[in-house]
Structures are given as C-alpha cells and as structure tokens.
C-alpha cells in the first residue's frame, strides 16, 4: 500500500512524502509500522488526533477508528488537521 505525507507531517518522516509498505491488517498496525520506521512521536501524535487520516480519499471517521481494515492497494494519506483560531 502507499502512504502519503503532507505539510508538517513530513517533519516526522525525515522529509519523505511517500512510502510504500507491505499490506497491513489495520490502521493501528500501520501507525505502529510508521512509528518503527520514523519515531515514537509519530505514533503518539497520530493517535492523539493531531492528524487527519484518509483511506482512499475518505476520512477515517466514516469507517471507524484505528482498527479500520486495510487492503493491499489502499492509498493512505496523512495530513495535518485543519485548525484556526
């Protein structure tokens, strides 16, 4: 599957904006994998709802939480949440 990173997320991926990883069972295991590849901060921040996660263009809120099932050719996009003040 393809995992794409946008904006400030790239600070946690050493500037990578796209990686390919083997298909994983669910979103939680993908985040574990990214944390292993990059840093533990990645796991912590993602799971604290700092980022928006899209699976094939759909926000994860429509499909459930971190146990969302993933398929081999899924495109995962991780972006900063939209916020203002």
């Amino acid at each position: 599957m393809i995992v794409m990173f946008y904006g400030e997320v790239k600070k946690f991926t050493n500037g990578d904006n796209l990686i390919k990883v083997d298909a994983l069972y669910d979103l939680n295991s993908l985040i574990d994998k990214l944390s292993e590849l990059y840093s533990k901060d990645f796991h912590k921040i993602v799971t604290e709802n700092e980022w928006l996660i899209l699976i094939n263009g759909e926000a994860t809120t429509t499909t459930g939480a971190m146990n969302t099932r993933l398929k081999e050719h899924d495109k995962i996009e991780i972006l900063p949440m939209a916020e203002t003040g």
Partner: protein
Amino acid sequence: MINEKYIKVLYINLETEKIHIEHREDLMQYLGGVGIASKLFLENLKPDLPPMDAEQPIVFAIGAATYVFPVITKTVAMFISPLTGELGESYAGARLAMTLLMAGYDAVVITGKAKKQSYLSIATNNVSVKDARAIWGLSVTEVGQYIRDRERHKGQADGKRSILYIGPAGENGVSFAGVTVDTYRHFGRLGLGACMGAKNLKAISVYGNRSIPILNHKKYLKLYQQLYKKSTVTEYMAKYHDSGTPENIMPLNKGGGLPTRNMRTNSFEEAGRVCGESFALKNLVRKMSCTGCPVGCIHIGMYRREFDKGHEYEAISVSYDYELIFALGIFLGISNTDSIIALINEVEEYGLDAISTGVCLGWATDALEKGYITDEDTLVNLQFGKPEAYITAIGNLAKGVNAFYQALGKGSRHAASIYGGGEFAMQIAGNEMAGYHTGYGSLVGAAVGARHSHLDNGGYSLDQNNEAFDEDKYVDALFTEECERCMTNSLIMCLFARKIYDRQTIIDSLNALGWTLTDEDLTAIGRRIYKIKLEIKKALGFRQMGVKIPKRFFETPSMNGILDEDVVKSMIRKYSEKTEEFLTSEGD
C-alpha cells in the same frame, strides 16, 4: 485588573459625553475577557429596542492575563449583531489589548449616539469625544493615516497606541461591516462596524503609558520563559508561523470538506494554486505578530497593481489567512493568488467582513445563474472564477447602490428571503458559514454555538478526529468545549495557543499573577460565562430549535459524507434540551 481585586470599567455615553469609571469587585468571579464583557453587556442591554438603537451597548474587554504572558493577545467586543439580531461577539489582536491594559481599563462600555460624526480618544486619565466629520466617508487606509497623525501623546512611542476604525460599509450600515484594528487585525464578524456607524463613531484611539509591577517576579519569570519556549521552539505553534492557517486548504480539499463555488462541491480542483505554499512562494513578503506574541502568524501578502496606463504601478499588501482565501477565493472559484489579494484589499478598504462578503457573493452568483436575480440587480455579470466583477460588486455592496445590494448588505439569509434561493444561501442562523464542511460537528456546532461560529465549540475538529461518529457524544463534546472556550476567552488567549495553555498552565499563570484558582474553579467560570451568554441570547429571542439549515448543507457531501437532516435536527434538539436544563440548574 492585574494585581487588584476589582475590574476597572470605563463607561462612555456618546450622546451626553458623560464618562465615568467603576471599580467592580463583583465582576472578579467572571475572571475577565468574555466573562466580564458578557456580564456588562447583559446589564446594559435593551432587549426591547432594535439592534441598532443608540441605547444598545458596545462592550470591549481584555482578559485576566492580557499581555503579561505570551500569546494572550486578544480583546473581545460584544454587541447586538445586526446580521443575526442576537449576540454579537468578536475578537481581535494587534496592540489593542496591551494598550487598554496600559491605559488602565479592563473594560469599556459605550452607549448612546454621538450628536455629530465623532471618534473616541481613550488615554490614561483622559477620555474625549472628538470631531470626525472630516474623515467620515474615508476608506479604512485613509482614516488610519488621519488618526495616527492626530492622536499623538506627549512622550508617546507608537507601539503603545492602538487604533480601531470603520470604513464606508460601517457608516452605511452593512450588517456585516467589520472594524479594522491597527491595519492588519479585525473585529471581523457579525457587524460591529455597523454598530459603531450607527453611533456616529468612526474610530477609537487607545493610548496607555502605565507600567505594571509583577508581584511574584521569580515565579512569573520562570513560567514566562517556559511558555515562551513552548511558543517558539516546539512544534505547537510552528505551522502558524510557517505557512499559517492557509495550510488548512490541502487537508480540507483532500478530505472533501472545502466548500467550493457556493458549496456546490466539497473540493476545489485548483486548490494547489491557492494553498499556503503557493501564497508563500508568490506573495508573502513578511510575517508579523500581535503585541505580546512571539509566534509571527500574521502573513502579509503583496501584489503589484497597475492603476493607470504608462507603467503606473502600486504595491498592494494585505494580511491573508485561511478564511479569507476560502471566502474570497475558493468559494468564488478564484484560483489566482494576486486576484484573491486584490479582493481582500477591496474588502479591507470598505471595512467589510471578508467571510460574509465572499459567502454573500457566492449566493448572488448562484442566484443570478439560476434566474432568481438579474443583471439589473447585480449591475455586473457575476461568474465563478471571474474576479473583476466581484471587485465592482464589493464596492456596490459597501455603498448599497441599489435595492439588491442594500438587501445583500443585510446578509444572505435576508437577501434570499426577498429574492428566493434560501436553499443555497450558505448561512447558519444568519451568520455566513466559515470554510469547513467537515461533518455533523461543524454544522451542529455552528447552529448551536453562541455566535454561530466554528470557533465557539470547535465542531470541525471533532469531525476530523479518528473516532467514529456518535450523536450523543458529539452533543456532549460541543457543550463541554463551548464552556471551556468561555473560560479560555476570559484570559483572553489567542485560540492558536490552546495547546500551550492546558488547564494546569492556565492555573499556574493566573496564580503567578495573584489569583488562587483550582481546576474546579476554571470549570465553574466557564459554565458561569456560558450561562450568561445563553441568557443574552434568550433575551434577544434566539431559540436553538428555530435554526433552519439551508438544503445545500445536506446535498453536498461533507468530509464525512452526506449529512442526514434528521440527525442534525435530533442533535440540535438534544443540545437545546441540554442548555434548557443548564439554564434552570442552580449554581454557576
């Protein structure tokens, strides 16, 4: 008042020119900011008189920790909104909070209508109403220059003065006219500019020269340094300094929550051309901060405008952020950064709220295309993606050149009530939508929020988290966050800093200034303030169950898919029941 056990309130009656000061110990229970502003507003409100009646109050207030800690930079204004007919509440940064603090006033209550066109000069121990007939009708830039030249105080450094002023839109009573503060910040939403115009008040100059001793200097300094570090060298505020809030454009576009062309769609095919990165590469010339903030989130963009033949150019610079790019760019289908800056500049000069202006013009474009209105109404051929006609329309709107623009100047809900097309007038409870079509959180949050803003309860954040939607949990979360923001807005910190100022940090900060507050106290303060706001809304006739949401909100998919109207109604009903119960409960 920092170091004191009272809130110092300056009362100004513009009609009688009588001025007096009260030291209000009873207001300390509201902490400051929106807490004291709400209480003072309720005390002076005349619910039976029209919103623009001279007797209606305008209240400004600063917070309990204004300026003495980083990013605590905002001033709140409360008024009756001519746009919604109920609670008007707006926040602005720049130098205003600092100068009010240095002038020695926690709050200013303005009533009455000046006998002639005037401006107010507020300084330490010196307040006067001055003649503004010579500057009535001037644009925002011109009036700013005039007041800056005239309002000089002995020994003054410019940094200790703040000026707020209205443009022609406020004078002409456009219901969403804003107030400009120190050139680049605004009380934008809900029509404070029209309220000032109705009082014959063109501008307010505030000058302060006090110094404020810090009683527990050691404790204060240690905490200040920690907060400064958190604000500048950690990730918390980095994105606000880097490309700023326009960074929102790509996530919203990717996720399908970006209202485009009067929200006909939820994404913009040319989003990449108007995102933060594009503005930064093409137009960004500098970054600025409000006084007391080390972040530098105000992004100034510039473009070169040809104002005459023969290679005659001028540099136009404005501050830009996400909401402005959304409303005057994406919502109107415009994908050129220079054109968006030109539109922002036009809105600035006339003193209009950018969000309402863009959303009203989006409705007008759709209404023209669908035949609800004609070219004879709009006077120009409004078309999505064509900035030139919008430039002209903004001037027409601010000046109210004909019956159509006068109606549009009362908001899209009002215009649609006359011409039709209410199903695509993208307002909620009369307030034009902000740039988030993220899901149930944003829609219901705006419907029930005190000022119908996405910032009342952060519903759009709920929609973007990774948890499954749950109706009851969302309703509870919106209510809790609304109370929480009442508390944080009593400080008044910039909402960008909400991750820096967690509960314990707020307690430590306030206690370093002499308060003795606990976590429970902060919860009680938030609830107490929200209760007053609900009382104000009730007094002005607002009922949550009465909010009618335009159809298009249920037709265009949100970030979380198509929204079900029945679910939204159910959530509003549950929220309404919750607030009714809250209003009749004892305590707080």
